[in-house]
């Protein structure tokens, strides 16, 4: 089975990558379907996106085909712990900031992000989260006067 696989998909990176590009391009084509493809002088609102999307379909297909023909490296494992901690913390910040303000949203964000590190020490992380949030709260809204909410607004 594994032999068969390595023969069939010789450069998994390129095959998956090419396929992903084609899917993105097809999504774009679907989304601009209602826009005119050409106007009086050749160009309309839907022309450029279509041109670029067709180009992407073609190039994606070529990346895929070379992926079948040439040997290439395997896809490295994804670190789901990192994705959840890092990107999750950013999403958490986005969800909380308007209602809870920087003073409250900063702490769980920094804590969640910290879990991405394998050498996390909880006590240190908690103290650091509070200190960092306090520092940001002072620096951005107060010292630099950025219009970011600092306290919860209910």
């Amino acid at each position: 089975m594994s032999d068969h696989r390595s023969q069939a998909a010789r450069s998994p990176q390129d095959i998956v990558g090419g396929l992903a590009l084609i899917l993105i391009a097809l999504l774009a084509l679907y989304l601009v379907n209602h826009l005119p493809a050409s106007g009086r002088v050749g160009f309309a609102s839907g022309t450029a996106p279509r041109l670029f999307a067709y180009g992407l379909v073609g190039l994606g297909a070529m990346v895929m085909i070379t992926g079948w023909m040439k040997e290439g490296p395997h896809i490295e494992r994804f670190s789901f712990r990192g994705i959840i901690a890092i990107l999750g913390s950013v999403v958490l910040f986005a969800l909380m900031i308007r209602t809870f303000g920087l003073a409250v949203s900063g702490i769980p964000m920094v804590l969640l992000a910290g879990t991405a590190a394998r050498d996390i020490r909880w006590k240190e992380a908690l103290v650091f989260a509070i200190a960092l949030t306090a520092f940001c709260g002072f620096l951005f809204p107060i010292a630099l006067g950025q219009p970011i909410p600092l306290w919860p607004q209910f």
Partner: protein
Amino acid sequence: MELLSNLAYGFSVAATIQNILLCLLGALVGTLIGVLPGIGPVATIAMLLPITYKLDPTGALIMLAGIYYGAQYGGSTTAILVNLPGESSSVVTALDGHQMAKKGRAGAALAIAAIGSFIAGTFGTILIAALGKPLTEIAQAFGPADYFSLMVLGLVCAVVLASGSVLKALAMIFLGLLLSTVGTDLETGEQRMTFGLLPLADGIEFVTLAMGVFGFAEILRNLEQEQSRDIVEQKVTNLMPTRADLKEAAPAVVRGTLLGSILGILPGGGAVLAAFGSYTLEKKLSKTPKEFGKGAICGVAGPESANNAAAQTSFIPLLTLGIPPNAVMAIMVGAMTIHGIVPGPQIMQKQPDLFWGMIASMWIGNLMLVIINLPLVGLWVRLLRVPYRMLFPAILIFCAIGVYSINNQPFDVMLTAFFGLCGYVLIKLSFEPAPMLVAFVLGKLMEEKLRQAMLLSRGDPTTFVSFSQHPISTVLIIVSGILLVLAVTPSLRKKRDEVFVE
């Protein structure tokens, strides 16, 4: 000498107390992020953009420019003392610089890096001043078709200069172009690919894409690699290189400066490629190529001069043609737009204080950086003892606050996280994100010029290659075609790959 009087005018603008302080601040922040691995100039400038609202445009741009070239200085410190690239453009500096440090010659390595950078920075500054006027005049003769073709050439350069597969780089260009068309159509006001989301009506915010794909994806990747920090413990002494060192390094500095100046102007090039190219060149020209990797001083002097020269000269296409050649310059476009400045040939005429003031400030900044980096090196080393587990959450919250502050939109923060995921996947599939970003930045302008040119030619697409109508455009398209063919030619591809091997 018009050049001298212009430069003198520039110094009178740059030498006000406010502008000198802003220049110093930019240089300090640049050195800081240059020293710290995992945060680069793109994310930093993006983060600081909202803060510059309150400054006058000249001061704001002086500060932001300082961050970029300051990072080139700071990056070498980490590379030499810790064997980690503080900045991606100092990857090759670590090869020989760290070996020198291990032999107790850290002082000489740091000094030659700083001196080389300063010479390169000075040359780069003079080059901007000298090329500014003629290039601006050329740019004013450009019609929409010529502009479009120039950007095509720019994108082809970005493909040729990208590392890895040409085909994949080309695909990234088209992805970037496609992403740039998201938002309201400029002529008809129709919504394109916005999913009915209001915050997407103005298009994808550049900072969300850049910070996600470069900043967040980079953090994810750093966390996967166990980093051992091999800090050279002994105190750095002897900051003066010997006469023999200087004599050996001088030609490398000159070559690095020239190579870096050229690569900085080309789109997709910039500081990283300049450093790689210079290292390969020095190794080829050296009488003792075996010394490279074991502490050859030319392996530090060349790349460090090259990356700083490139950092300076990449301002040339932005200031004269309005075309950003790399991601950092793209974000400078954002900074200019905030202050209502349209990058391009008109800057020199409409805002001479900005144009010449910024150039003069670059030289002042380079001078300050030598002082910031050499005597204060102990201070920066101490920063390197901050563990990464504390560094990356700090970078994340700064970035999140920065992105939010651009439009006060939580949606932008979400979008950044999404692009972070996309960037991580791209890295895993060996696609290089840099060409995509350059294409994204040029995309809007390209579509606009394309449509204008088509309107003028009444819908005839051959107008771009019609020598009688648009000679400049025709030549540019032909050059682009030749470059693209050369890039896929096997023998040349081999040479190009060699540059990236080290």
